[in-house]
């Protein structure tokens, strides 16, 4: 057990103690997000991008468009591929190398939120059926990890696809010149993450709360109170009622998040 682990054990004991009396270490309410900042078009070289900060957590999402062959089972549909790198500068616990399970889970949960919401009109990304379609490459770069990567990364991603412009495609070549045409995006999926600590549930976990949590749940929603993806994590459990209550809370909080887009 490293000294890092031991200090997290101490911190977690403190968080559990605080939460028991209904408090959070930064005095937030249980249903309160930290300040959120969203910078659309943060990387001008990318076809679409955004920087999102929730508290001190920072994630940059960048979109690249490349032409590729479609999947055989959807020959006239574009493709979304989401990758995530927990870059070593973002936390002492992140290391370079191939993505580990937490990075894979993050990328897949963000991907699922966007894909299942049908935010991107994939049928409009077909260039030549069976031959060529646009592939939307969404890359997440976690720059500073201070808790709640799921919501930060999803907000950055949705913002990035919303400001993505299509490149030109002429004579079988992608011309890196931005057009006025936008990536066809018709919905704004957002994700709300809650953690359970003891028997209390709170939204937007800080780093200390992420470390102290027993269980975590993330709900992805589109407007109109529709749930499009969900994921439970952590070694603790939720009751059925807790899940239903957090979903109700999600519908309330996701409206606030969607306003930022």
């Amino acid at each position, binding site marked *: 057990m490293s000294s890092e682990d031991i200090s997290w054990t101490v911190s977690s004991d403190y968080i559990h103690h605080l939460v028991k009396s209904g408090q959070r270490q930064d005095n937030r309410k249980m249903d309160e997000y930290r300040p959120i900042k969203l910078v659309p078009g943060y990387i001008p070289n990318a076809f679409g991008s955004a920087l999102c900060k929730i508290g001190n957590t920072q994630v940059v999402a960048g979109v690249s468009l490349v032409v590729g062959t479609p999947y055989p089972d959807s020959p006239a549909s574009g493709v979304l591929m989401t990758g995530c790198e927990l870059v070593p500068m973002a936390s002492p616990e992140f290391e370079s190398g191939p993505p580990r399970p937490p990075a894979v889970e993050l990328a897949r949960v963000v991907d699922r939120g966007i894909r299942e919401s049908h935010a991107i009109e994939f049928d409009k990304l077909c260039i030549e059926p069976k031959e060529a379609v646009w592939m939307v490459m969404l890359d997440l770069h976690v720059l500073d990890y201070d808790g709640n990567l799921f919501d930060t990364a999803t907000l950055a991603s949705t913002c990035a696809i919303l400001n993505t412009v299509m490149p030109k495609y002429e004579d079988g070549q992608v011309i890196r010149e931005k057009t006025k045409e936008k990536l066809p995006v018709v919905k704004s999926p957002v994700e709300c993450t809650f953690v359970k600590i003891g028997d209390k549930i709170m939204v937007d976990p800080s780093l200390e709360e992420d470390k102290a949590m027993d269980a975590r749940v993330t709900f992805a929603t589109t407007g109109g109170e529709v749930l499009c993806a969900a994921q439970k994590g*952590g070694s603790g459990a939720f009751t059925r009622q807790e899940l239903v209550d957090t979903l109700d809370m999600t519908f309330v909080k996701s409206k606030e998040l969607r306003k930022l887009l």
Partner: protein
Amino acid sequence: MGGVSNVPLIKDGKRLDGRKPDELRDVRIEAGVLERADGSAYLEWGSNKVLAAVYGPQEVLPKHLSDPTKAVLTYRYNMAPFSVDDRKRPGPDRRSVEISKISAEALEKVVLLEQFPNTMIKVFVEVLQAEAGTRCAALTAASVALADAGIPMRDLVVACAAGKINDTVVLDLGKSEDNFGQADVPIAIVPHTGEIVLMQMDGDLTRDEYTQALDLAVKGSMQVYELQKDALKRRYGGVVDEQ
């Protein structure tokens, strides 16, 4: 999930394979099927075939993963290349990494890890034939294999999915329902407490549909739980061998 619901999957209240909306596929479980593993189980769920094996508690390798407060539980979900129609490239892909992570977390809730500090418990699940719902089948088999290995647990973990097809919430999606359905909600529970230790969802559901799906999946899980216990009783139930 397609989001398009124009493929008819329910006719006259029956699903394509003849099941009612709240009916499970046939599930068959056998405990203790492998020689070398400390515990094992074989499970068929519809046409799914999965094998689970448990090794440990044993020495932790690599050593730096060792935890002086509890055992480390690892879980490997793996699909055989021949388990699906189009050959799956061997080795872990992102999907199986994610399933392995959340399945390990689900088992951590019930396994008494704190009784075995500085050790490792390894769970391996091989999906030999896949036909929708493999993560639930795998986790259900894994918890029987853990019990077969004699590892102390608070309860078994049992998994089952519910979903939505043709705007109807149904239990345990089959393959075409998974491909052409509108939502899938796999969950795993601790039967004695009803706590939910794994939950994923994709597709589109309203709040009411989500709660219906949760309730239906819990109901299905409880049925599979009985089969898990039966399998263990058949192996250890104190019935004297015929010979």
